[in-house]
């Protein structure tokens, strides 16, 4: 195991996936995971910039690689917890190595900012890979003080961690078992989730919602059929889509699923005996508190302000009329 790692948090960790960041910070100390943030990193462009213009998209990623390489001191491993960030960093490094033309273009652009990146000089890895392969499950097990016994978890990786897998790091592209093994090490009951690497809809929640709702429906209905209490993910985008758009998906299909989804690091923190408030619990929109309390007896922090209650819809379809005052004559029920 490296004595420290270069750390690329990515934009989501500062906002929508704050729970991922908080829980990672809480477990990194007991795991001895020393993360050194890349100074002044920028957005990786997600899946958006690549579809606009090639050289700028790769130059945007290239700046991060160049900054990381410049900061590398005794390590060349960059850890990214976000799937899209992980893939983009790995993709740029991989294609720059494969294509000297691309490498040249990116470096001409980087030179305008006084930077340079030699492809192949860094190793880009996902957080789960580092925990499984560098720290190891024995070390993880040793830190479990509150086993997640009886909690039925659907392990959910989404797409961009196991695929395209340029460096052949994962056990399988479609049914990898790394997350299953980790969750089992925490004492959880792990379902053999057939859709574990299926798509959450990605950015289609923003641009083609009906396409996305169908993909979300497949995932939550499968997890529900397998009687999972919750899903555990490694990806901010997956968490956002399944958590924040579950309500809209339910409305679209006239369903009533309640399938919470949390980050695997939050469950690690719980198993390590950490306080749920420290792990970002309560930030999810599809609440997980009840099931955690029921299964493993964990008291969740008081929920942060929830959505205001909606006005109950009126049952009768007549035009709205002022209601007669209570007790006044004429308040008899009219059919």
């Amino acid at each position: 195991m490296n004595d420290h790692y270069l750390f690329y948090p990515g934009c989501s960790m500062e906002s929508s996936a704050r729970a991922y960041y908080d829980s990672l910070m809480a477990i990194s100390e007991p795991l001895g995971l020393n993360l050194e943030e890349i100074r002044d990193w920028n957005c990786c462009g997600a899946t958006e910039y690549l579809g606009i213009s090639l050289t700028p998209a790769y130059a945007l990623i290239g700046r991060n690689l160049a900054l990381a390489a410049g900061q590398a001191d005794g390590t060349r491993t960059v850890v990214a917890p976000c799937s899209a960030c992980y893939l983009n960093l790995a993709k740029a490094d991989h294609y720059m190595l494969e294509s000297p033309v691309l490498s040249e273009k990116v470096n001409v652009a980087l030179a305008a900012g006084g930077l340079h990146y030699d492809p192949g000089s860094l190793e880009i890895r996902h957080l789960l890979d580092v925990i499984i392969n560098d720290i190891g499950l024995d070390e993880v097990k040793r830190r479990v003080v509150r086993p997640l016994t009886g909690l039925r978890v659907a392990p959910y990786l989404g797409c961009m961690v196991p695929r395209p897998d340029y460096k052949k790091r994962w056990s399988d592209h479609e049914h990898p078992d790394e997350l299953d093994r980790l969750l089992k090490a925490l004492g959880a009951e792990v379902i053999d989730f057939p859709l574990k690497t299926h798509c959450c809809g990605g950015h289609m929640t923003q641009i083609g919602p009906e396409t996305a709702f169908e993909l979300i429906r497949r995932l939550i209905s499968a997890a529900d059929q397998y009687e999972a209490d919750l899903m555990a993910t490694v990806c901010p985008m997956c968490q956002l889509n399944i958590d924040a758009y579950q309500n809209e998906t339910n409305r679209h299909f006239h369903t009533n699923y309640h399938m919470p989804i949390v980050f695997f690091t939050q469950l690690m923190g719980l198993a390590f005996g950490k306080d749920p408030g420290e792990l970002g619990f309560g930030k999810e929109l599809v609440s997980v508190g009840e099931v955690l309390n029921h299964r493993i007896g964990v008291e969740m922090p008081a929920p942060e302000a929830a959505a205001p209650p909606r006005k109950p819809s009126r049952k009768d379809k007549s035009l709205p009329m002022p209601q007669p005052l209570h007790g006044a004559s004429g308040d008899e029920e009219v059919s």
Partner: protein
Amino acid sequence: MTPHAEPSLDPTNPNLRFLEEVSAATAGVSRLEMCIQCGTCGGSCPPAADMDHTPRMLFAMIRAGMREAALRSNTPWICVSCYHCVVRCPQDVHIADVMYTLKSMAIRAGLYKDKAATETAADFSQTFVDMVEKYGRSFEFGLATRHYLKHFPLRLPGMAPMGFGMLSKKRMDFTPRRIENIDQLKAILARAKEVEAAA
């Protein structure tokens, strides 16, 4: 436009070299030329049902020089970058990256505007990129408000509780975060655009 008009077989017709053009514009080695039309891609594609053409058909259209029809297809815009087709392709074609290439070519040729869905998709990408170029980080609140007001005003009432939840749970900031050396990033991106324009 006749979507499937037969392109001229005159050897000077540049569209007959469209395949080479797409391949050359793709990052790394696309291997698009190696497609054997087996259809594994379309069969593996989660949102294929919403596409104008399956990836296989689109690649055959590219090979046939049907530039305009290929660039007007909604297929690259529906692609969710799940990479199922990429890992299953027996010829190792970098399908997802070819989709990115087709999107950027459609934008450059102005051929994404005649369908609401592709226009929305391209506009979302551009808005996202605008924020990143300005601040160096993504800015979800700015992106969401600008995008939804413009493209999905009717979704807003149903989404209000979600938006409120994201804000009150501090999962979305009202103000953007700017990187320190934004001038450096802007200089890099400006040079990158020059490089791209010269290509």
